[in-house]
């Protein structure tokens, strides 16, 4: 935009571009994005970053970090740094894979329920509430006890137990968008329901869907790590969860080999923290309440008033 005209101009924007703008519009979200990106890059370039087989026995067990083994060795005599870097591959794949599946189910079920109402909504809403009250982790534990553990199995199990949270939010948003004039116009002009849902309503809730997707990635990584730690995943795979399982299995903490534990646990926490930052950052930009809140803050700061009262009073200067 030129310097002479600084007024915001109404411009035709693609909903996708708009979503990316809100995704990266705040410093919090940017920080979160950088953190997550670092781990994604580590997963992609694992072979260059930590060459060698992470499952190989490399030396004496429980060696502390050194120049030879950057993060030491674990109780099974494996290189912790290799395990950390290579573990990001499957952990992130499971997280993002299950999140894609969860979001797909949530979008289809939530939007169809919110748009059609009546019997369709009653049935779908019942199903959503059902999945919300059935305890997720215990069901996951049972599923992994009965099914053969594997990456695909765990992705599907996570998706089945985790989609309903987003489904309910998307349903509520669809119900409120359905009352808008542009939807009424599409209905009157005789467009079929599914095309109204996915062509007209969907682009208007990209923010909510992206927010839900980010939450779903966190859920997927956290839950799969927990299951692997309990020994319910395929323990031959290298993920952050199985790294922690082997460290615990070898009694690493009891002999004080904290380096076998810290890297993988910290990696999960940092990814989850980064994703949470992205979500909070997005919320700051799209939530009118928080925008108003920021404006109040800046007024108070200018007036040098500490925020001590329920209703702050700014003295008027004459």
């Amino acid at each position, binding site marked *: 935009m030129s310097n002479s005209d600084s007024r915001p101009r109404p411009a035709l924007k693609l909903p996708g571009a708009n979503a990316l703008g809100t995704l990266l519009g705040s410093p919090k979200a940017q920080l979160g994005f950088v953190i997550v990106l670092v781990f994604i890059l580590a997963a992609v370039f694992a072979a260059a970053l930590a060459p060698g087989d992470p499952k190989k026995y490399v030396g004496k067990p429980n060696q502390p970090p050194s120049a030879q083994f950057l993060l030491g060795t674990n109780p099974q005599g494996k290189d912790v740094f290799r395990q950390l870097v290579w573990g990001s591959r499957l952990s992130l794949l499971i997280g993002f894979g299950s999140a894609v599946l969860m979001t797909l189910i949530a979008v289809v079920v939530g939007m169809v329920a919110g748009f059609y109402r009546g019997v369709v909504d009653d049935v779908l809403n019942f199903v959503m509430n*059902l999945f919300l*009250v*059935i*305890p997720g982790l215990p069901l996951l534990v*049972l599923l992994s*006890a009965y099914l053969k553990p594997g990456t695909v199995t765990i992705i599907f199990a996570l998706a089945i137990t985790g989609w309903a949270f987003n489904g309910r939010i998307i349903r509520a948003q669809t119900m409120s968008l359905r009352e808008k004039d542009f939807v009424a116009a599409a209905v009157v002009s005789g467009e079929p329901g599914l095309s109204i849902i996915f062509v007209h309503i969907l682009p208007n809730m990209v923010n909510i869907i992206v927010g839900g997707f980010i939450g779903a990635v966190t859920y997927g990584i956290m839950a799969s790590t927990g299951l692997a730690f309990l020994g*319910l995943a395929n323990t031959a795979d290298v993920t952050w969860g199985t790294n922690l399982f082997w460290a615990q299995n070898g009694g690493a903490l009891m002999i004080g080999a904290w380096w076998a*534990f810290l890297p993988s646990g910290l990696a999960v926490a940092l990814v989850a923290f980064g994703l949470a930052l992205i979500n909070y950052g997005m919320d700051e930009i799209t939530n009118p309440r928080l925008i108003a809140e920021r404006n109040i803050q800046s007024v108070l700061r200018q007036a040098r008033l500490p925020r001590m009262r329920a*209703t702050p009073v700014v003295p008027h200067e004459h």
Partner: protein
Amino acid sequence: MRYILRRLGFYLAALAVAITINFFLPRLLPGDPAAVILGTSAAKLTPENLRAVREALGLSDAPLIQQYGLYLAHLFRGDFGISYTYFPTPVTKVIANGFVWTLLLGSVSLVLSFALGNLIGIYGSWRRGGLVDTVFPPLLIFIGSFPAFFLALGLLYAFGVKLDWLPISHAYNNRLPQGFNLPFLLSVLEHMVLPATTSVLLGIGGWALGMRNVMVSVLADDYVTMAEAKGLKQIRIMFVYAARNALLPGVTGFGIALGAILSGQVLIETVFSYPGLGFLLINSVNGRDYPLMQGLFMMITIGILAANFLVDILYTWLDPRVRTG
């Protein structure tokens, strides 16, 4: 009243679905489920035991619908069969023992994180931009980003192993006589500190942030400005006017939080070998104790459904708008 009845109907339907899931899960096993389930521990079991377990799980050669009927009949008699790992204790008895500990640990941590979280939220919204408001939210989000078991292991290592201040496993001192005597109760309290702290650390952030954000919008309401204009004390406006109404959305979250606490508790109980339902569940999975596994899933689900129903009743009582809606 109609609202309550409708919710009751929903929970009964949910219960029916959970029962059905529980019935079909063993049938996901590759091959003949009965052979796998009974095969692992068959040596220990007498023929009567075998038959009892088969019937409790509804595993027989009869058509599926008859198996389902048999399974239902046993379920309503409260008969889940006999546990393999705690042989020959009936599953119901094993579960009853675990239930007490899970309920104790769960309710203590839920009440603590609810109270502390909401207080931080209220205080933060009161002094917006102050120390509490700038430091706590990111800190709590960061702590909440750790997997439950990892935080539990960290606390166990620091306070149980390195400093050796607190016991690292089990729920009470085995050498003390059980009952309502002071040494025993103190040992229960001592054993609860680490697991409860883990659970509170994980749960508190959600309550604090939720409360803060609702408070921010409630504080902008006219009746708060009115109260301020009347010259009421700040503390009265905060707690009696604003916080009371801001608590309402939190109560709805209570039901979901119960489920979340129980899920997190599975991992925490396992790390601390705390003998609750979660610890039993993992033990039963590792020991291929299918009757106990099935019974535990059923009990956990029933517990969560019942708790949610109680929250619904509480909500009707707190928010008159629901009663007519």
